[in-house]
């Protein structure tokens, strides 16, 4: 009996879990430019339903953690599973939640939920003339030949969504497992990966699909390299496409393709995990796996001048702080101050870190973000928010 008593004293009872409300953490001095702040989407580990949104306010110099949850505490099962992309268009902000098969739409200032667009296995988002375009791994399943396992594959698609009604109005089938997309001159360029066919007979995709927005039909496939991931266009119409490689000797690479002259202008032998375009600078980070580093990836931090097509910085972190970064995962550059924001996903289990570096590449501050911090968007007047 004493034993039972002791047991009940030691242990606690089950309660309903409390909603994790906003936590504001002051970091640094306020700063007043037309960039009011930025949102950071933390992916959250797959199956953990832990995608979360943080907001950094330049006017207070503080980070608000889990701002989606505090703005929408009554949403069942919260933000969702694996946030893969974020963008602002008009007054709305869109979060592509990959494993929750939806694009979550919120007010860009209050973060109050406006609605959701159900798109299975959605990946990246871009906007153009009142419509959102979302790449997704979901398209028709193709059966070839005898129909053995090797001959079955899935095509992807780009969904066209009306940003006023949030309804899907059209869908254009592209290559297999399309990832990042960008829009230039009335055309959508989307990088096909073919990641699901890794090792299969059909192999990876090696093209960028071109969609004519007017007709919303795929008009061209541009061969670039296998297993493409990133696709960003600069103001001169050069498409910066990155490949993942095949993890078996073929490494990830960066390609510059001129959309006007229809030719490849340069291939860069640099590793790429993520990129950010700021003016004439393309910031390229990588987190190549290295067994020697005992769990740390040997990250690289480069800047490419998109005008001269030259690598102008081999390491934009100039004070050695890169040795502390375990898994460089996301990057953004403040369009006004040119401060560099870097997301370190760390071990994927811990909360990741958000680093800030000055334009000179010197460490300014770091703070724990959410689980797998990854995707940024800036908020402000007269800046390109997407």
């Amino acid at each position, binding site marked *: 009996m004493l034993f039972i008593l002791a*047991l009940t004293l*030691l242990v*606690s009872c*089950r309660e309903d879990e409390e*909603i994790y409300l906003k936590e504001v953490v002051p970091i640094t001095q306020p700063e007043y430019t037309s960039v009011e702040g930025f949102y950071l989407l933390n992916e959250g580990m797959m199956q953990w339903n832990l995608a979360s949104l943080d907001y950094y306010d330049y006017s207070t110099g503080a980070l608000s953690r889990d701002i989606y949850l505090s703005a929408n505490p009554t949403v069942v099962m919260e933000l969702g599973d694996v946030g893969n992309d974020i963008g602002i268009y008009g007054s709305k902000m869109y979060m592509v939640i990959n*494993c929750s098969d939806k694009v979550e739409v919120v007010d860009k200032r209050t973060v109050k939920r406006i609605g959701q667009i159900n798109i299975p296995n959605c990946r990246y988002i871009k906007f153009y003339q009142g419509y959102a375009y979302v790449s997704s791994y979901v398209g028709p399943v193709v059966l070839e030949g005898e129909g053995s396992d090797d001959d079955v594959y899935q095509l992807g698609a780009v969904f066209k969504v009306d940003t006023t009604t949030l309804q899907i109005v059209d869908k254009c089938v592209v290559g297999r497992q399309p990832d990042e997309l960008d829009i230039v001159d009335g055309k959508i360029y989307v990088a096909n990966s073919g990641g699901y066919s890794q090792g299969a007979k059909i192999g990876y995709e090696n093209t960028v699909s071109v969609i004519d927005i007017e007709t919303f039909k795929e008009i061209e496939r541009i061969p670039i390299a296998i297993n493409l991931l990133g696709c960003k266009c600069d103001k001169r119409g050069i498409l910066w496409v990155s490949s*993942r490689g095949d993890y078996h000797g073929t490494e990830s690479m960066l390609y510059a393709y001129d959309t006007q002259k229809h030719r490849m202008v340069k291939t860069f032998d640099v590793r790429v995990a993520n990129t950010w375009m700021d003016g004439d600078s393309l910031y390229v980070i*990588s987190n190549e796996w290295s067994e020697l580093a005992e769990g740390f990836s040997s990250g690289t931090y480069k800047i490419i001048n998109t005008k001269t097509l030259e690598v102008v910085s081999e390491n934009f972190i100039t004070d050695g702080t890169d040795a502390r970064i375990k898994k460089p995962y996301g990057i953004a550059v403040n369009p006004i101050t040119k401060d560099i924001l870097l997301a370190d996903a760390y071990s994927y289990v811990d909360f990741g870190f958000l680093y800030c570096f000055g334009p000179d590449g010197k460490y300014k501050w770091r703070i724990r973000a*959410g689980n797998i911090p990854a995707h940024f968007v800036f908020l402000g007047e007269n800046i390109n928010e997407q």
Partner: protein
Amino acid sequence: MLKRFSITLLAIVACCLGSLAQDADDVPLGLDTVQYLENVVVYGRKPYAEVIPAQTLAGKKLEGLNSHSIADAIRYFSGVQVKDYGGVGGIKTIDIRSMGTNHLGVFYDGIQLGNAQNGQIDLGKFSLDNVEEISLYNGQKSEIFQPARDFGAAGSVYIKTRRPKFSGEKNDNFNITMRTGSFGLANPSVRWEHRISRTLIMSLSAEYTYATGQYHFRYRKKFSDGTIAWDTTAVRKNGDVQAFRAEGAIFGTLDEGKWNAKFYYYDSERGIPGAIVNNVWMNSQRQWDRNFFTQGGWQRRFGDNFETMVNAKYARDFMHYNNPDTTLMLVDNKFRQDEIYVSSANKYTIIPDWDVNLSVDYKWNYLNSTLTNFSYPQRHTTLAAFATARTWHRFKCQASLLYTMINDRYKTIYQGETLAHHSKWIHKFTPAVFMNYQPVQRYDFYLRAFYKRIFRMPTFNDLFYTDMGNANLRPEYANQFDLGFWYQRLREEGFFTGLKFTADAYYNTITDKIIAVPSGRGQYRWTMMNIGKVKIIGVDVTARATMHLARDFNVDVNLSYTYQKARDYSDPESTGYGGTYKGQIAYIPWHSGSVVGRATWRDLDVNYSFIYVGERYSTSCNERAYHQQPWYTHDLSASYTFSIGSTKLKVAAEVNNLFNQYYDVIINYPMPGRNYKLILKFDF
């Protein structure tokens, strides 16, 4: 008074006779065994061969627990955590003293169940229908006369299937059981036991399980003021299972020994219900398993000093995983494993209180898969164990040294071409020491201690899973130090007829722990590394009381409690808010425990059980976002046994999770609320 005394005395005599009549290893070892006498609950007072006795569930006590699978029953042991993905078909693996599932050996009728592919035995797949006894040993079964493999795990569970017993001239026993209840469960089983001759008996059993696996679950969260933020109820889908099991065994008695042979076949198809996340309430992945093994053992004594035992096994396991959901990556993978195992154990008694044993085992494992660029690994394992046991008056000691030699052979294949053949060797020596001391002859009070160092090999998945495995992995080590005591007091009359109390404190370390680390752009690529380190401090306590309340009315209460501080020392740089350093490792609660109460009155048997698992975190980053609430379930069952002619009929009803608590064991894998089961058993 006199009458009650004589009944008890009779029972003790009967129980001693009963145990003498059985083979040595047929007697449930340790003093924890309740003898199978109707109406009377007593402890057996028998000498035991082990230095440190096991925690054991057997006979009616096991039958009375509301358990469908072996995993459900093991939850009642102290020091054990079960990872349960929910429902009838969900995976259930167990972890003892926070060392990880891969450090646990599961032995089925004396021979270890292998899974070279992932090193984990899903105990949810093993039904309790044909099981007589389950025992849990920390360290190892501290008996020296056993195969070398039995020295090779950090902790072991021994599952013993039913051994036929025949009363009088009866040569055949039949049993038909039907179970039904919640989740659309239909679970019939049959068993036939036959005495071929005085020295030869056999048994055959078969079981079929079908369940739709559907149940309601509820998730909700509240605001800090207690009002509900959101609250949702849904139906768990794609948790259906159908499984067929057939098992046969033959047991022979020799003049100076015995032999046995058996086969086991299991064939199943199940849905994998998957994690519940925002906007996704259903998954459609499926899995098929087919397991077959056949094994046998022979044991004989030569003279007074020498005894030998030979065991052999062949196993084939087939697994097929399919994802038909076209919105995700289509997957259709098949895996086939083969295992061949032979063992010889030889015990020599130098002087009556001093035994030595030498065991040598050989094991071969092979994994074949439809994965592309697969390595087709083979593993040759040779084990040699030298062990000795010595008794000096009231002090018992046992020491063993295990030598392990492993040869892994695999290929590097890319795009259909074999690029290289590899062969890797590992040689290791690992020791264990067990001690037991009884300070005073008069009292059943014993002090005990053990030390053991052992490792687990990286599994084939760790090493060779296409694009994820890391062929350079080293073994993962577990070191265990344990200090404890046990005490019991038996009385032949009075209110308390028996009291037993055990307590152990332990310190374990896991070094070179194999953990998954992200290895590429995005979340979809991982690899395995030897970078983990865990330190575990724990206390296991058990208590048991048997009470005689009135004539024919007995009560038996068992309590267990576990405290564990299992901290992650892997990354000293990950400190502060959101870090993992010194965090409690994933899914290990600080406090857990169980209460099992059983009351018997003539042919009526009522059981109540309670399981408590305290708060824990889903990763070693102990932040609110990963916090898991405690959960506890109350289960109740009652059974009544009666006879119609020569047929014995048992009717049982169970209510599980009586207070309908909605909980998760694994994050986003909801467990069922209140559920029911009805059991009918015919014995003739």
